[in-house]
């Protein structure tokens, strides 16, 4: 299945991309995806420790191990600074 990953703010700058598509096997969950993202961008490792994530525009924690399905959109959410 294909998962679209969006990078914002510091994670976008460190990854050097705005968005990217990852290919995962059936039954993969968010923790698997995050491992793949860090494998693709080792420099993101420390940044990711400060981030949360959004799955289809709803916040999830990495340890929630949310099941993924083809076409899902996952966003890397660094500490917020809107307002």
């Amino acid at each position, binding site marked *: 299945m294909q998962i679209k990953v*969006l990078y*914002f*703010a*510091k994670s*976008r700058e460190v990854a050097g991309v705005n968005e990217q598509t990852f290919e995962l096997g059936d039954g993969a969950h968010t923790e698997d995806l995050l491992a793949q993202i860090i494998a693709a961008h080792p420099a993101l490792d420390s940044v990711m420790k400060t981030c949360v994530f*959004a799955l289809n*525009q709803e916040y999830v924690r990495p340890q929630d191990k949310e099941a993924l399905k083809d076409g899902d959109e996952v*966003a890397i*959410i*660094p*500490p*917020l*600074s*809107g*307002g």
Partner: protein
Amino acid sequence: MKNIFCEVTSDPLDISRYVELVADPGAGAISTFTGVTRNNFQGKTVIKLDYEAYTPMALKKLQELAHQVTNKWSVCKVAIAHRVGTVLVGEPSVIIAVSSAHRRESLEAVHWAIDELKASVPIWKKEFFEDGSVWKENEE
């Protein structure tokens, strides 16, 4: 819902627009909060801020936030706008306007809404100083 208006925009924000959007014949009070780029942070001169949003999710979260305001307080109308892109010193980055029959509701709702916005809406700002830039983090 026609009593809620939210937007994420790269256009400059004009307070009059949002006050008009919450105007209501049953409203006796309109409270607003405007976040503005200030010229310094911890003694360093700020040149500008760049705001970046996960726009569709930010808009969704703003709408959820506006709905929560209408659930928590007896208010007439709620408008919330956040700007993205470059925001120069003195320019608004966010405007929240709430109208209510009585004053307490809109005053409390605006205060709550800006705190909640900073904690839950996926928007980021980068501060540009004379000698560099940094991604900010809102405090809890």
